[in-house]
């Protein structure tokens, strides 16, 4: 899919609001036809980066190149993008059809061509029967689709979406996720979507850019981000993660309390020397019940939380010197093993599920 040259290249981009640095030294490449999500907690700078790409709030330093052309200092009107805001910003006094036609009317095309394109777009987003209504007469999900149709009407090279689904309820959100992704696939339009919802990012994106406090933590496919987080921030932010503090006790051994864990060298992210403080991490769903050849510990159940298809148990073990650990068990297993508060059990931490980080980078 990837051609040699990226469609969008961001180099050493920094954005300051007065003394405050909202983005620092961001470098990123996005390829033609890709669906990229900017993911991060509130206030991390996702919107700021998107607005810099659109030219709405120009960066303080750094360059942006789109389709081989330096657009760093171009005003928004001279860039090539369509945008959907969280508020949708539909023109309230124009009908759906006029909203969608708004951009087409500026292309100096014959009227009939504009109208047929509008019909086509209305069909594309499934709102043909609503075309004469005003935005206020539509539901949130319908408004969102109008905004999307308006943004892609002039066939921009780049589609920017700022939390387009956050104003909708969960059901509609799930449905629209698929619709947007599907539409993007069909049109093949390079798309950047800002979101703070990891599920959204994991299900929709080809690649995810995890941002925290104005810097990029990791760029990768959803699988890479989930399975191989490069920083404790990413590990913690995406999905659930147990962190255990320990020290390095040998080539591939970590000591946590009295327990020595064997880990896989290849998964080490830390470069610490012997006896240095490290953190090991494992997801609750990766913890296995029952004895195994390695990394086996005795634990007792402190609390259980029912989460529908599975149960999250808070476990503790004297061997871990007071550090507790969360594990997910299927409802079945809980029943068959009769797990409840106070139960004793043996768990093991599979070697290939354990990751290690420097303790310094623990957030």
């Amino acid at each position: 899919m990837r051609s040699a040259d990226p469609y969008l290249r961001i180099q050493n981009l920094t954005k300051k609001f007065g003394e405050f640095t909202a983005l620092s030294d961001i470098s990123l490449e996005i390829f033609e036809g890709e669906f990229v999500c900017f993911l991060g907690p509130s206030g991390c700078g996702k919107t700021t980066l998107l607005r810099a790409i659109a030219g709405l709030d120009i960066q303080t330093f750094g360059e942006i190149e789109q389709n081989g052309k330096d657009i760093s200092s171009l005003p928004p009107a001279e860039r090539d993008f369509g945008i959907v805001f969280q508020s949708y910003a539909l023109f309230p006094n124009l009908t759906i059809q006029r909203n969608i036609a708004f951009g087409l009317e500026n292309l100096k095309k014959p009227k009939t061509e504009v109208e047929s394109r509008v019909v086509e777009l209305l069909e594309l987003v499934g709102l043909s029967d609503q075309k004469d209504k005003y935005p206020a007469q539509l539901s949130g999900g319908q408004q969102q689709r109008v905004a999307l149709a308006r943004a892609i009407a002039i066939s921009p090279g780049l589609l920017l979406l700022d939390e387009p689904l956050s104003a909708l309820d969960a059901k509609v959100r799930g449905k629209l996720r698929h619709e947007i992704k599907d539409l993007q696939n069909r049109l093949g339009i390079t798309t950047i979507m800002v979101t703070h919802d990891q599920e959204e990012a994991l299900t929709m994106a080809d690649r995810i850019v995890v941002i925290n406090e104005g810097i990029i933590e990791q760029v990768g496919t959803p699988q890479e981000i989930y399975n191989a987080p490069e920083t404790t921030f990413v590990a913690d932010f995406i999905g659930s993660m147990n962190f255990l503090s320990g020290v390095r006790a040998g080539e591939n051994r970590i000591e946590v309390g009295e327990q020595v864990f064997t880990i896989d060298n290849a998964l080490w992210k830390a470069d610490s020397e012997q006896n240095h403080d490290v953190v090991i991490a494992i997801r609750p769903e990766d913890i296995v019940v029952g004895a195994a050849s390695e990394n086996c510990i005795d634990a007792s159940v402190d609390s259980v939380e029912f989460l529908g298809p599975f149960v999250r148990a808070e476990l503790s073990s004297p061997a871990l010197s007071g550090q507790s650990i969360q594990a997910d068990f299927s409802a079945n297993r809980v029943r068959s093993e009769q797990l409840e508060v106070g139960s004793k059990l043996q768990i093991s931490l599979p070697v290939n599920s354990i990751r290690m980080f420097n303790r310094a980078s623990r957030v």
Partner: protein
Amino acid sequence: MAIAESTNQVSTNWKEVKSRSSRDDRQMLVFMGIIACYLVVALAFPLYAILSKSFENNDGAFIGLANYIEYFKTPALTYSIQNSLFIASITTLIVVSVAFLFAYGLSRSCMRFKSGFRVIALVPILVPSLLPGIALVYLFGRQGMLKELLFGHDIYGPIGIIISEVFFTLPHALIIIMTALSIADARLYESAESLNSSKLRTFFTVTIPGARYGLISAAFVVFTLTITDFGAPKVIGGDFNVLATDIYKQVIGQQNFEMGAVVSMILLLPAGIAFFVDRIMQRKQVALLSARAVAFDPKPSRVFDWAMFGWASVVSVFILTILLTCQYAAIIKFYPYDLSFSLNNFDFDRMDGGGWTSFFNSLKLASWTAVVGTVIVFFGAYMVEKGRGFNAGRGVFQFLAMLPMAVPGLVLGLAYIFFFNDPDNPLNFLYHTMAILVISTITHFYTVAHLTAVTALKQMDKEFESVAASLKAPFYKTFMRVTVPVSLPAILDISIYLFVNAMTTVSAVVFLYGPHTALASVAVLNMDDAGDIAPAAAMGMMIFYANVTVKILHSLISKGILKRTQAWRYR
């Protein structure tokens, strides 16, 4: 990229990126520049002219502070400073208390007849400030109907001025305090109630602090309006001189323009200070506003509701008495000797003052001001709010737009004489024309109109322009197809505000009208001056009728337009 790593990276290019401007940006800048030029010519230059005049002698030679020294050596003149401060302070005290109680009743009680009280309280806006003075002459003058109530005091003087100013400024204070009270957060009251706090305690710990910026702001507005008003002291002031009447007397009576300029500068001081304090207060109020408050929903309480009803009635009776007295004066033959009904007083063509022509001139002035003013103000506000870049220029524009509020009408009018009547000025041909009256009136009332426009524009989704830019729509398309239709209610508000004020204003235009451009409000002044008090009252009522008619028309039209063009507002 780990955190430790990223901080070590050094960016190669530390040259700050500056946005290039688009064609839209440049076009908008040009329009903003044009309107800024208007403000410079119609405001900054004349103000400079009056300032420099105060340092010159009769022949136009620079004489430094000599005029000021002469001013302060003339006790007859300096007394006016005290007098003005006295009148303004007392009026402020009375009006803010009265208006606060009235507004409190309107927003916090379940009294009856609320909407009626609200309408009555806004009546004074529709008449010139000369009118209450005329009513007071009929009520408490030498042959007044209620003369005994004064126990021998003279209505001509501070008492009359203060009563007139209370009438004149009350609605302005009321509007500000109503806004302040209506944004108060209901949740505070609920929590106060659940803490079992007494009503009185809640009042002092929650209500007053919540409304404090509104109260202070109202106080400064009333103070400014009073100290700069010239209608009331002119009609009912008698020998009691204030700064505003001094300017008028120096210029019209003694043709001493330099001294007029000096008094103007002195009048600018308190008005200017009040203006800046008020701006600061307004800003804090806005900060309060943005916090998400829950609207307060009053619960009925017999005693409290009736007490508030009583107070609102007293205030309403006061306002209506003044208005109806003028109405009465206008339609009887010859007070107090012949009280039979007659329309003789409306036969303006038989009196000095401009006759019926002056009334039609006023209508013309008001219409032009409303149309041209609304276009200039709204366009200017749009350019300054929605344009990109050139922030320094934007700041200057904002300042110029706010400045008129700090400049008393008389000062502006006198400044126009100095600037436009200068034979060397290429704009000299404007002098004594309808055009200069329109320009001065638009400028005089620019600030409030501008703020209304800015508020409306700020309420619009700020991403409209971003979306339009991404769709490559030129700004004028977005402006005409979206901004104007969506802001139509505010645009209509601005035009009616300009119309009503153009009908009633005296201060700026009194120096500027010419033989063919006499105005109704000025006719009221001149007829009153000549002793034709009843015709003056009649003309004052004509202004009132015109304003009421236009207000009613305006609400009908705006309802019609809203129904037609704003179907989207209704689901």
